[in-house]
């Protein structure tokens, strides 16, 4: 029909397991990047604290700020500034959020809020700036979900994981703990290992003309003439399929319903099928088992 514009950049969702990325409202999550665009909210100078653009502070400033805060403020506002027995949450404070460099926070410290039981504090301008840096960085840490740290996830039973690996999981169909997975527990930490179990394919495995990966999808295309083409899948939609053969040659075919005949071979199919069967305990047990393979 009509084709114009830039070459298509396809997210091969069906095979790659990449979540379609056109849907998001809030940036930063795994399923929420705009289609084929910037992976994280771009930092835009001049808009501190809004829209994912947070000021960066050096460690020394944050350390000083935290110490000053802990010694003077934590008793009422809590150790993490999320509020305590008598003082409000400072990370949700409109004053703190509107403050840039301590100019608003400083005023409150200097004058206190005597009617609400907050005394005056005689801090130097540097101390005010340090406290303000600590608070702003704590706000950033709460809001910037891309930086959240995953905690200790090792809760599984390694023996049960081993049994699942050798039995119900069907893992030995492709993997061996003395072969491809030997010492896998030394290569990755628990979080990355678990992520590799549920999603071994990293990023897009198509559109690349070099650097073949064992997770690539391959395709066999059989034309009505009987001619057969094999190669790594580069692109497929309802109207065309493109592959790169073993010589690196690119072949593209128009599709019309079932013509030409296409067979796809996804080496990650077993992992995709497991998504429907796993219990969370199965996943945790597998992780606990694989981390023992040092």
């Amino acid at each position, binding site marked *: 029909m009509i*084709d114009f514009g830039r070459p298509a950049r396809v997210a*091969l*969702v069906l095979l790659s397991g990449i979540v379609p990325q056109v*849907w998001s409202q809030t940036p930063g999550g795994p399923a929420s990047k*705009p289609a084929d665009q910037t992976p994280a*909210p771009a930092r835009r100078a001049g808009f501190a604290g809004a829209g994912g653009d947070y000021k960066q502070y050096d460690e020394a400033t944050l350390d000083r700020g935290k110490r000053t805060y802990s010694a003077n403020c934590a008793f009422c506002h809590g150790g993490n500034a999320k509020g305590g027995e008598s003082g409000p949450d400072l990370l949700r404070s409109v004053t703190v959020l509107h403050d840039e460099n301590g100019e608003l926070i400083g005023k409150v410290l200097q004058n206190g809020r005597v009617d609400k039981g907050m005394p005056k504090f005689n801090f130097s301008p540097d101390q005010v700036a340090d406290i303000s840096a600590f608070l702003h960085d704590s706000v950033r840490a709460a809001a910037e979900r891309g930086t*959240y740290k995953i905690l200790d*996830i090792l809760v599984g039973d390694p023996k049960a994981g081993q049994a699942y690996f050798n039995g119900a999981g069907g893992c030995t169909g492709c993997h061996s703990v003395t072969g491809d997975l030997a010492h896998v527990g030394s290569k990755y930490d628990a979080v990355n290992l*678990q992520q590799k179990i549920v999603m071994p394919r990293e990023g897009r495995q198509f559109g690349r003309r070099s650097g073949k990966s064992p997770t690539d999808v391959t395709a066999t295309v059989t034309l009505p003439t009987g001619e057969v083409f094999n190669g790594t899948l580069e692109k497929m939609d309802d109207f065309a399929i493109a592959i790169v053969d073993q010589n690196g040659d690119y072949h593209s075919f128009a599709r019309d319903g079932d013509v030409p005949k296409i067979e796809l071979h996804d080496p990650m199919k077993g992992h995709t099928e497991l998504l429907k069967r796993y219990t969370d305990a199965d*996943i945790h047990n597998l992780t606990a088992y694989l981390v023992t393979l040092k």
Partner: protein
Amino acid sequence: MRTARSLFAICLAALPGVLAAQMLDPSLLLKPPTNAWPTYNGDYSGRRFSTLSQINQSNIKNLNLAWIYRANPGETPGAKVGGEGPPPKPGQGGNPFGVSIKATPLMVNGVLYFTTPDNTWAVDARTGTELWHYFWRTRGGIHIGNRGVGMYGNWLYFETPDNYLVSLDAKTGKERWHKEIADVKQEYFSTPAPIVVGNHVIVGTGGDSLDVPGFLEAHDPETGEIQWKWWSEPMKKGDLGAESWPDEYSMRHGGGMTWIPGTYDPELKLYYVGTGNPNPVMAGQSRKGDDLFTCSIVALDIETGKMRWYFQASPHDTHDWDAAQTPVLFDGVIDGKPRKLLAQANRNGYFFVLDRETGKDIVSYPFLETMNWSKGVDSMGRPIPNPEKEPQVPGVLVSPPSGGATNWPPPSFDPETGLFYVGTSASYSVFYLTDTDPHPEGYGAAEKASGGLGSTLRAIDYKTGKTVWRHDFPGGGTTGLLTTAGKLLFAGDGSNHLVVFDPANGKILWHAGLGGNVGNGPETYLLDGKQYLVVGAGDSLYAFTLAQ
């Protein structure tokens, strides 16, 4: 004599035309669109069904490109400039996410009006020629998308990422006024297209990062003054729904954003909107309870903003499953009786049909086969969450992921087939609780994408929720939809194509490659006796007509 009479007739005919060159006739908003597309969904119902049939199954093969308009956002030469922020530095002022037209343009009296974040354009609907461009100097906010403008008489309204409602003169693009509706420093950011009902400009907002309450409000179209404001949560003990929160503090930081334009029933005088997820988003320990009225479909009195009824789609949500998806209004037959219905394909994987007079549930059916978080539905038709699938420290595998089984791209209801069409996605994520504090903040959990089974265009029988036919896209996701009386279903395929399906059976009838993915729902209108099909894809609008 004859000449004089003709002249008089011409004067009579021309006069209102001159006066009303840009003016939107409010009665247009009350019927299905034909020679206009006067509001976000075409009409108030949210069906995105056009009665036009000039383009139909017999001639779809002759659909041809009429024009392309490529949007060039930023402080371009000749742009009218407003806003409270600083001038953009060189290289700034565009969009950090790239330019993607997520607006559904309005078409009124031969002019298309549409937006990207911080930018509004008027474009000749016959030729794609730019008439004016308005640029807003921003103070910040997340610039992820903007759904377009609302119109009242000669005035346009749009929202900015830094939460201003801005009104422009439709004829010139000159700003009339702007009003701040939410605080960007508290991480609110606004994307909806305002919806104009009578003399109310209805605006909502968004923002998930710092635990602020959502709201919907009505503004006066002439002055911009606020008329009413409805909060997504009860504000104090004793208020309706307050028992679904542990305390006043949690409800006042409870989320429930109103970031997708709602729909309206002119007979019932009710405005329907879906609310977003509760906050903190994925850590629920400080907000035990159902967290009303987040993740809910609510009906508000258009004159007062008072809530008439609510239906909660995801009680105590911990997966970011907004219920903001378009609530589609149509009349149908249930158990042999005609009913006024509201249908929504929800981000959580359920398809709901409600009685839109009472909010009573009629159908609750999980359309997504991989959905694994719910233990069925309760006596009120609400899904029962499985607490074991709330985010946990060692991770839990959940389908759908936070992006949802479906999301903001508008669905369509075709009264001729009686089918509800929606683009869906079957994927998984592992949700890790990262904030175990009794008072978590922000999202409180990390989410790692774990693969999926692809994207599908579905035709759903509203009487059962069951999928009647489906088309699995081999590459990429689906987008907004449009059905027409030409027995056509227009969709994007996630592989930069505009695709036309037979709405009865899902057979592909036609397609065209575009320079990007379809960004919102395609639209159609009749102009000079010619039916146009207009769709935004990437940074451009594409207009199609039948070859002569």
